[in-house]
């Protein structure tokens, strides 16, 4: 038997007995940022492909939510900081090795992009809308003219936003659960899936709903594959990673992960989507809500469980 004890009484708040540095703010942001990345990805992709008439919810309506999602997410990130008055230091440094620096600069770009994108469609949503000042009208005309370029830039930033949150966690090799390169793709797949769920919810035409239902089904399939892959990788890795996997395979996170993320968040909505594709009438609200709940739980569980996985003591 081997036991390691800290006998000098190290009890640093939020570090001992297990790391507890990140609370609800980080997973909430990861989720909201992910949903926004998913929506903006589809919006710019389908705009570039010229499907403006076919998928109005994806290109015009759903992106209008993204400024709000991003701003709430940014607010959560700000609340997480413990030295808040110095947050602007983020924008005095470009640190290529730090995923958080990438994230800060990406958010600085994609938040205004999402606002501009939404603003260019506002007149189609509210025909009575008019910009108060003439220069705003000119600005709108300018952006509408260069919408295609805007879409390309947004596509790039949406991918970075969707992937970096996973890379952010997987870069921490001190936390064996996070330290897997699958986390980036998993979070990106989840953000596309949750983004598609929001679009499904807002789509008016059966065709658009059907297409995004299919996309979502594909993403759920990819997520399930990646989840299996993560645990296979851990089981074939070092002891600390085997221990990390065991937190989900019999350990404290087993029930909450397999029930809320895998069953309720992935398998049930996948089943409902298959039924819908077979022609049964399934209220879209149920499927979408389940997908979004699953995505939220995934972020919360990974963030909390990751902090509990460690090398020492």
């Amino acid at each position, binding site marked *: *038997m*081997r*036991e*390691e*004890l*800290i*006998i*000098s*009484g*190290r*009890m*640093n*708040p*939020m*570090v*001992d007995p297990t*790391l507890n*540095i*990140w609370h609800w703010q980080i997973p909430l942001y990861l989720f909201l940022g992910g949903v926004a990345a998913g929506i903006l990805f589809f919006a710019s992709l389908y705009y570039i492909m010229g499907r403006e008439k076919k998928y109005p919810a994806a290109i015009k309506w759903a992106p209008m939510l993204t400024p709000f999602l991003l701003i709430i997410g940014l607010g959560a990130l700000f609340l*997480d*900081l*413990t*030295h*808040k*008055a*110095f*947050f602007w*230091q*983020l924008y*005095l*440094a470009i*640190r290529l*090795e*730090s*995923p*958080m*620096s990438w*994230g*800060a600069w990406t958010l600085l770009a994609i938040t205004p992009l999402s606002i501009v994108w939404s603003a260019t469609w506002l007149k189609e949503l509210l025909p009575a809308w008019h910009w108060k000042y003439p220069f705003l009208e000119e600005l709108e005309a300018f952006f509408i003219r260069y919408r295609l370029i805007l879409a390309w830039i947004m596509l790039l930033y949406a991918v970075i936003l969707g992937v970096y949150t996973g890379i952010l966690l997987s*870069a*921490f*090799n*001190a*936390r064996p659960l996070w330290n897997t390169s699958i986390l980036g793709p998993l979070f990106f797949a989840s953000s596309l899936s949750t983004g598609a769920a929001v679009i499904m919810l807002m789509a008016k035409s059966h065709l658009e709903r059907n297409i995004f239902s299919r996309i979502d089904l594909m993403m759920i399939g990819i997520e399930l594959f990646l989840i299996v892959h993560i645990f296979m990788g851990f089981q074939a890795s*070092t002891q600390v990673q085997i221990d990390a996997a065991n937190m989900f395979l019999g350990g404290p996170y087993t029930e909450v992960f397999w029930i809320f993320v895998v069953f309720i968040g992935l398998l049930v909505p996948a089943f409902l989507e298959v039924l819908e594709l077979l022609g049964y009438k399934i209220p879209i609200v149920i499927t979408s809500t389940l997908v979004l709940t699953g995505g939220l739980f995934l972020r919360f569980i990974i963030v909390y469980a990751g*902090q509990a996985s*460690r*090398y*020492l*003591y």
Partner: protein
Amino acid sequence: MRFAMAIDTKKCVGCSDCVVACQTENNVPIGYCRDWIVEVNEGTYPQLEMEIRSERCNHCTNSPCVRCCPTGASHYDYGGTVLVTAHKCIGCGACIASCPYDARYTHPKGYVDKCTFCVHRIKDGLPPACVAVCPTKCLYFGDTDDPRSEISQVLKKRKYKRLIPEAGTNPNLYFLI
């Protein structure tokens, strides 16, 4: 110059004098500590083995905390020490999550804090506070780039281990065994 510390686990009795000395020297807030004592017990009675280690920040050569810091607050400083510039730190917690030794904490004032190897003392040629007070003289501090330094000599003579070098951090605390 590459500052490092060697801890003689055969001599350490776990008195926690180093912990108290550090808290006093560096005004560490009450309830926090920058160094700590770990006791490892192995085996079952009567075949027991015990190891006592005085631990602190490893001032890693390849520090994950420096790598992940988004503002450059965590940085390499004098003689390879890893320090935090309080007025650049935003308190995001990334470095705390990145440290496999859990050597960092959030200071009640909001910025992240940790062992500095008493950089204000070593610049004056003094040993860190923990080394200075150790009653069993089990802590060695010095420059491992200098083959004549006491720590280099000790590391040449004695067997040692480092904590979780597999985390890829290239730590600079040596535990003499």
